[in-house]
């Protein structure tokens, strides 16, 4: 997904796309508001875009909209193993929500998710930005070398990467423990990384940061190449040093990009499921469950489906809020750049 969203949001050539209908027939936009075209033909052209959009829209509504609605309905039901097997529908009002919102567990997991997301995003953004700026400073050959490394990390399928990290951090014969031991930290020789909450989160964080930095670094580098050289020349003429020209030219120029990227990363890390789940299934003792994993384990693992749905919905609400902020930023940017939506 990481890759995917980049291209639409960042590299979208986004020029004025809709330029009316060329050549024959009347512009459908005008037909709908009642132009002077023959009614039959006008209506046909007027409905054409809707017909073209219908299959995609129908698929989205059925396969995305329906599960969302279903999620909402499930969250108001008492649905455990018994009800599931007997196909019973027991409505229980807002009980699930009341239980979730008053339980200590839910808030602990939420706080954990927020801390986990913040730590990851800060690391990703700071390191990604630094590496992006480094890319801009390197010569062609070194830049190619570093980009190759970044693309390799970026391209690794999350589940494959998780498996590799399990091996790197394996207690016996794992490279990380060997290196720490050789560096003089002998108590780490057979350290079990998935044995405690903090060390498990450490591994997950290294994994997620490693996989997410390339997106930020490469796109940031691409963005720096679009900064007009004249701005730096002007800054130099005004007597600005390296740091001053960075803060007064580079940063303001990159600000919209950085803002949008922060939101994207927050959304991605917050809902990261494969890595967190696959590394230790939320263990030890359910101490590394973030909200999506918590919803999954409550709902499916412990077969409290209604409860799981309620937690999911609360998570979706948080994500929707984040997404709407993100979209607002992106849409505003497109408008500012003169692109027409």
């Amino acid at each position: 997904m990481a890759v995917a969203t980049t291209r639409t949001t960042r590299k979208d050539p986004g020029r004025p796309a809709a330029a009316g209908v060329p050549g024959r027939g009347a512009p459908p936009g005008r037909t709908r508001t009642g132009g002077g075209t023959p009614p039959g033909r006008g209506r046909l052209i007027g409905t054409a875009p809707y017909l073209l959009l219908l299959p995609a829209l129908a698929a989205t509504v059925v396969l995305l909209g329906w599960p969302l609605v279903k999620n909402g309905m499930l969250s108001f039901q008492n649905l455990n193993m018994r009800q599931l097997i007997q196909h019973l529908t027991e409505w229980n009002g807002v009980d699930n929500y009341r239980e979730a919102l008053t339980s200590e567990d839910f808030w602990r997991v939420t706080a954990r998710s927020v801390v986990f997301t913040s730590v990851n995003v800060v690391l990703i953004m700071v390191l990604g930005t630094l590496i992006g700026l480094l890319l801009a400073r390197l010569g062609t050959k070194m830049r190619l070398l570093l980009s190759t490394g970044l693309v390799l990390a970026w391209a690794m399928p999350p589940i494959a990467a998780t498996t590799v990290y399990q091996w790197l951090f394996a207690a016996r014969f794992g490279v990380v423990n060997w290196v720490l031991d050789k560096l003089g930290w002998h108590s780490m020789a057979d350290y079990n990384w998935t044995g405690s909450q903090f060390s498990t989160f450490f591994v997950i964080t290294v994994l997620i940061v490693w996989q997410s930095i390339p997106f930020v670094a490469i796109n940031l580098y691409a963005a720096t190449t679009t900064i007009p050289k004249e701005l730096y020349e002007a800054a130099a003429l005004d007597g600005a040093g390296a740091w001053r020209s960075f803060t007064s030219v580079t940063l303001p120029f990159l600000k919209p990009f950085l803002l949008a990227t922060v939101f994207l990363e927050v959304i991605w890390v917050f809902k990261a499921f494969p890595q967190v789940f696959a590394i230790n299934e939320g263990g030890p003792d359910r101490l590394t469950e973030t909200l999506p994993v918590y919803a999954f384990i409550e709902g499916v693992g412990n077969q409290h489906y209604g409860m799981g749905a309620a937690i999911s919905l609360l998570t979706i609400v948080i994500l929707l809020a984040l997404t709407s902020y993100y979209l607002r930023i992106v849409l505003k940017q497109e408008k500012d750049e003169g692109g027409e939506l």
Partner: protein
Amino acid sequence: MKRSAAGRLWPNATAIVLFVAFAFPVYWMFSTAFKPTSDIISEDPVWFPTNATFEHFKTATDADNFWTLVRNSLTVTVSAVALSLVLALLASFALARMRFKGRRGFLVTFMIAQMAPWEVMVIAIYMIIRDGEMLNSLVPLTLFYMVMVLPFTILTLRSYVAAVPKELEESAMVDGCTRPQAFIRVIFPLLAPGLMATSLFGFITAWNEFPLVLILNKDPEAQTLPLWLSKFQTNFGDDWGATMAAASLFAIPILLLFLFLQRKAVGGLTSGAVKG
């Protein structure tokens, strides 16, 4: 602006350290996959697979159902991408070339859909599929993967369609083509890079998908490769050589596609299409 020797040295040194940090896990996956077990379980790591062997790949491919799962993954991924391409072509043409009421609304809908939190919707999807008695089938997986990649495909193809000069289409219609003909004969061939880019990205997304198949397809013969890989280490009792071979087999197509994408799929085919 001249930089001192040290000023030139540190960026390059940092770049090399960073290259190692980013490439090492990928290197270690392949290198472990090729090392004989005695080199894997050695007190000091063997850094280079000098006694390369294919035995771990054999263990991985001989695992139960491996080839069934390869077929499942390919079937699901390819059909999902193909279906989404068809739907997206129609939609993106409307969004890029026509003016109509609600156009902006459609665009925003697809943008929101692109950010859909599928990871957190799995319980509801499970209930729907279970009520439809379609668990352990590849059909729901295919359909959901199609919708997962559809918004991205639409939004990206829209840019590619819009980038095809309108004059090309117009001149085809002056020469007597109807609009659909103009689309098929003129625009479609020019969309090749766009179709390539979107289908490869769709392929990567669907190939990697994990949470949905985890909950929907428990039957070992109805799973896909990510699920198989996530359980491999448990099932094979810490056989890291075989686990890394399995991870390599799973990752290779994606790594290749990615490198290919970086070079090929970017860039316009149409730059010289309109003269003057």
